[in-house]
């Protein structure tokens, strides 16, 4: 036995070693600077970090930012007014932007167009005049407008050459510029969702808050109401409600009427989310502690419960904005929503209602593209926000 042990002892004995630096017994609990930064950051900061990691959402935010720039600066960005007509260019096709004229560089320019009526098909035929070079001017003075309806100005980001025409996305049946229509249309189409969502958040917070905080019969009643509202097809009701808007109303009243209609039917989803969040947060230890320490309901709700789900509300609100944008578009498309002189993407699409016209003048469908991009961007942004809303997961 002892013989065996002797055989197994290693030939080289490891030297005894003591580390001279003092030993910190709490080393396992020490944090790296990075961890420390994370644990000390506020909830919103962590959400921001998490959101930044969601690349499609960040890109969508940039894209939306660009689109929303059209809202305050529509007059400057658009080369024409959305309703100014040009009888010489009815149903003009989109012009192509060229850089080189006969081999030499001129900068961005378009060729002039001359129109002729084809008596057989009764259509305007546009031919490019290859000798008429119309350079696009930048940061220039062009058509006059009233900036925000307040003061006169004529400054544009870009405008057609003096005496020339510039229709990059073509014109409609009255010779109105499509591109300018899109830029002005963004103003209404993009804000409809924001105003509508605000209404829906207010209603959702109110009903969801009552149901979640007080419970009992009130909760039951609101729950049933939410269920019924959610089981109704939205669009036919939107149609009926907007058909009820008086014809005599001006564009501004119609616009606010529409946003209220869109918000009125959207709140049940939010209310349900608020209610379930409130119910679960009410049971949390910190909420109980606050109640035990004598906090009044108002303080409990605003200081302790609300911060717990604001992020969720923002995320789900973002996800319901595209539905509202589409709702407005659909209603205006069907002649039930906004009408000229108000311009939105749905109003522009109204021109594309007749399929025979669209096959001849396909550029009338141009508003489809920004609508799809914006809706897609809002969906990605909402996804990113939803993932970031629960930063501790």
């Amino acid at each position: 036995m002892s013989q065996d042990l002797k055989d197994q002892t290693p030939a080289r004995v490891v030297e005894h070693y003591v580390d001279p630096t003092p030993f910190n017994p709490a080393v396992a609990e020490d944090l790296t600077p990075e961890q420390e930064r994370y644990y000390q950051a506020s909830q919103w900061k962590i959400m921001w970090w998490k959101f930044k990691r969601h690349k499609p959402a960040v890109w969508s935010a940039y894209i939306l930012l660009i689109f929303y720039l059209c809202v305050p600066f529509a007059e400057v960005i658009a080369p024409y007014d959305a309703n100014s007509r040009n009888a010489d260019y009815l149903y003009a096709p989109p012009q192509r932007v060229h850089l080189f004229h006969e081999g030499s560089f001129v900068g961005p320019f378009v060729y002039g167009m001359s129109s002729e009526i084809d008596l057989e098909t009764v259509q305007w035929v546009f031919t490019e005049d290859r000798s008429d070079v119309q350079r696009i001017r930048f940061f220039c003075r062009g058509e006059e407008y009233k900036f925000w309806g307040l003061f006169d100005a004529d400054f544009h980001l870009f405008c057609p050459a003096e005496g020339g025409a510039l229709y990059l996305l073509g014109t409609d049946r009255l010779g109105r510029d499509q591109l300018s229509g899109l830029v002005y249309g963004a103003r209404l189409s993009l804000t409809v969702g924001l105003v509508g969502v605000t209404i829906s958040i207010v209603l959702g917070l109110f009903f969801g808050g009552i149901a979640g905080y007080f419970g009992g019969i009130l909760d039951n009643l609101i729950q049933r109401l939410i269920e019924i509202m959610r089981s109704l097809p939205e669009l036919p009701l939107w149609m009926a409600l907007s058909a009820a808007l008086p014809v005599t109303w001006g564009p501004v009243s119609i616009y606010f009427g529409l946003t209220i209609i869109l918000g009125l039917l959207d709140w049940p989803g939010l209310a349900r989310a608020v209610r379930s969040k409130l119910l679960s947060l009410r049971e949390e230890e910190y909420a109980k502690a606050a109640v035990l320490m004598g906090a009044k309901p108002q303080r409990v709700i605003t200081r302790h419960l609300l911060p717990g789900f604001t992020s969720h509300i923002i995320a789900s609100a973002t996800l319901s904005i595209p539905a509202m944008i589409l709702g407005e578009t659909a209603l205006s498309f069907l002649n039930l929503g906004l009408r000229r002189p108000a311009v939105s993407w749905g109003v522009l699409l109204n021109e594309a209602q007749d399929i025979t016209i669209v096959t001849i003048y396909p550029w009338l469908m141009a508003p489809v593209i920004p609508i799809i991009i914006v809706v897609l961007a809002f969906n990605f942004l909402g996804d990113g926000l939803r993932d970031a809303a629960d930063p501790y997961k």
Partner: protein
Amino acid sequence: MLYYILRRLLLMIPTLLVISLLIFFIIELPTGDYITNQIAALRAIGEEASIAKLEFLRKEFSLDKPFFERYLIWIGLWPGPHGLDGLIQGNWGWSFEFDKPVEQVVGPTLPLTIVLNFATILFVYIVSFPIGIYSATRQYSWGDYGFTLLGYIGLATPNFLLALLLLYGFNRWFGMSIGGLMDPQYIDQPWSVDKMLSVLAHLIVPTIVIGTSGTAAMIRRLRANLLDELHKQYVTTGRAKGLKENQLLVKYPLRMAINPFIADIGNLIPSLVSGSVIVSVVMSLPTVGPVLLSALQSQDQFLSGFILLFVAVLTLIGMLISDLLLAVLDPRIRLGGRAAS
């Protein structure tokens, strides 16, 4: 099970009452009614003769009564000028614009509306089920990425715009008209095999158009549900025991993932019905959609009210079917316990 069905059906009665009240309220919102507007118009051009007739009509349809009485008369719980004669008794009301009973105006469009919605739901099921399973079992494959991308685009493209684009594309590149329900030569012809085929061919495009966003949503849900299940321990156990991949998938995780799938279809039905209304308008399909639009524009209140109610009932029935299916699949629900989502 019988008890569950019975309870579920009884629950629909108060729901229907609330919905009909809401709808009646909405169609009564515009100032005045069809006949008062007509009278005002006739007064304006100085024609007094027809006014008496219109006044008679106003009485006939009890438009001069207060709101709640009119509502009760409309649904048939209160005696009107002709006794109890409302929706419950099978009188759907009178269309002022067409000067015909509502029944005759919308009657021909109802079957197609039902067929179209049913076909769409079927399409959503049939397409999203295999694709969802494929995407989940082959996560991060090229196919999965492709379907995810398609799904996002499908979700973002509103169906009436998709209808517009398809109409344009078919017209442009195939010289084909896909609007309407059948080829023009079959209109007013007696029913034949060729006519049936033509109708079916014309149903395909609207079904796809209406169903696309729903399908995209369902694929995403099924994929997420199934992925959650696939990462659970029992799957690993099954695999360790030597179960074949396919058998394993069908036997456990799929059965778990299918419940929320069916419940979600129920939640999807309202938006599908919404879609069918506007797509029908764009593609000029003879469903209730275009009739509703014109009725709303001309304030033909009984007609629009009936269509709104019909659409709502259609949705409710769809949700009922999906609830019943769920009860068949999941004993926890039909035994009245709490459903796991």
